[in-house]
């Protein structure tokens, strides 16, 4: 088969596959890395990629187009997209304040941003439920205003905002700190209003990092389980998330069905990230033009 390859590929394969180095340990380190990666990740992952097809193509399609599965996928990915969009605004605000202004306790506030990374999801889940339940400190006043948060899709979005916020802050903040302030000052001296400077000078420079952060927050939120199941209410077709459906199918020993939902989630996640990547590329091209 290799004989049929194009000359370019043939030329590539003549090149040594690694550059020489006096440093030792390459075979050992690479061997260890690949072995562990295969045992812990690649072999298990291959089960996820292969097992759904035990149902056949039509069987797979029947599982993922089942109304309950479709609703769960829509809720997981819709809520994740909404939460990521809200986090884009909130994260931008927090990153801006942390990197541009000095105020007492700034370092402590900065450290606190990472709490959602460190706090186990189940703990976040029960705490958010207690806050927004109809008798909770925020849930009660909101309920009086006619807004139910816990046990509705709104609660899901809220939990996903909690989970995703640090991703946006932590990707935007370093770029904002490195951003050349002279450019902003130039814009201001040339007569731009603060608003124009923010929208036409700062935001375009931040856009790639912001999209990366939003992508990370979205991917994390779409697969989130622990912080959501307590507050969601888990009503089929209404507030049931896709990961929960996997758990339910596994409890019924429907392995192929569970794998099909898992694979669909994986595919949707990567489609979402790919779209963001394309958007990022387009923005970068426009920035250069």
């Amino acid at each position, binding site marked *: 088969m290799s004989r049929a390859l194009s000359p370019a590929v043939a030329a590539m394969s003549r090149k040594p596959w690694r550059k020489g180095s006096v440093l030792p340990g390459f075979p050992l*380190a690479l061997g260890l*890395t690949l072995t562990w*990666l295969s045992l812990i990740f690649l072999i298990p992952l291959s089960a996820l990629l292969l097992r759904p097809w035990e149902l056949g193509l039509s069987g797979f399609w029947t599982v993922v187009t089942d109304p309950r599965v479709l609703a769960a996928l829509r809720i997981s990915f819709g809520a994740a997209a909404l939460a990521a969009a809200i986090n884009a605004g909130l994260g931008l605000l927090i990153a801006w304040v942390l990197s541009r*202004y000095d105020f007492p306790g700034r370092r402590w506030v900065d450290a606190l941003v990472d709490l959602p990374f460190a706090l186990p999801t189940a703990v976040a889940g029960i705490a958010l439920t207690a806050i927004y339940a109809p008798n909770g400190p925020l849930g009660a006043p909101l309920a009086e205003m006619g807004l139910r948060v816990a046990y509705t899709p709104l609660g899901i979005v809220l939990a996903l905002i909690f989970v995703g916020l640090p991703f946006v802050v932590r990707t935007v903040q370093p770029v904002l700190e490195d951003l050349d302030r002279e450019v902003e000052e130039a814009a201001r001296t040339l007569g731009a209003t603060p608003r124009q400077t923010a929208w036409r000078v700062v935001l375009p420079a931040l856009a790639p990092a912001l999209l990366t952060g939003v992508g990370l927050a979205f991917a994390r939120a779409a697969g989130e389980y622990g912080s959501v199941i307590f507050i969601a209410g888990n009503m089929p077709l209404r507030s049931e998330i896709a*990961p929960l459906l*996997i758990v339910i199918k596994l409890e019924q020993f429907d392995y192929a069905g*569970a794998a099909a939902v898992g694979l669909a989630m994986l595919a949707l996640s990567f489609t979402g990230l790919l779209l963001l990547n394309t958007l990022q590329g387009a923005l970068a091209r426009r920035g250069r033009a």
Partner: protein
Amino acid sequence: MNARRLSAGRLALIASALIALSLIVVLPLAMVFHEALRQGAGAYVAALAEPDAWAAMRLTLLVAAISVPLNAVFGLAAAWTIAKFEFRGRSLLVTLIDLPFSISPVVSGLVWVLLFGVNGWLGPLMQELGIRVIFNITGVILATLLVTLPFVARELIPLMEQQGGDEETAAITLGAGPWTTFFRVTLPNVKWGLLYGVLLCNARAMGEFGAVSVVSGHIRGLTNTLPLHVEILYNEYDFVGAFAVATVLAGLALVTLGLKSALEWRHAGELAAVRRH
């Protein structure tokens, strides 16, 4: 453009950022302690003294004690391979190592059931050999290993890339053996970064819920980790118990954040995560 001069607009921005953070981050944390102490310190202590809570704590420590060192060794090997050598497929390897981060925790548990469960690929074989993986500690450890796989590697790879291989090359040229070079040159250079990665890896290992929940079977005293114990108590409407156990995990998160910030403040120059900031 004086950062110290606070105009009304700046104050408004700072205030709204602080209010958002308080509502989203601080309030849930405070709620955990408030709910745990709702019926007084006596009920709180009694809930923590439960034998099942202790068993969950022991299992959580055991799982972290096994999975964190293994993934730390993996992280060191992966970073050595990727940062010190140039070879084809290098960027693919980096992508693969990062991938477990963008996979749902439930899927990270599911893959092990697909392999070792009753209807799994290796399920019948395991049954014949009398080995239980799913609904057993082994499964909990495997699931934890998968979700914590990238933590140490992704901290060490950029750090070791920045440091390059010059110091190691000098040591080797001067006649140092490979292991001497690794332990005397490389390891001291990355020790704070390694500690940073281990810290985050450990926090996730002890706090993981979704992946572990799928493989554990929630057997009290046997396969129940602390986060799973929180869920069981909560679903039994034992709210003081659930939040009491949750305070232990929240405490762990706060200690992790404290140590992490201390590392960032003191050793900023020797951490990849901070250099990126």
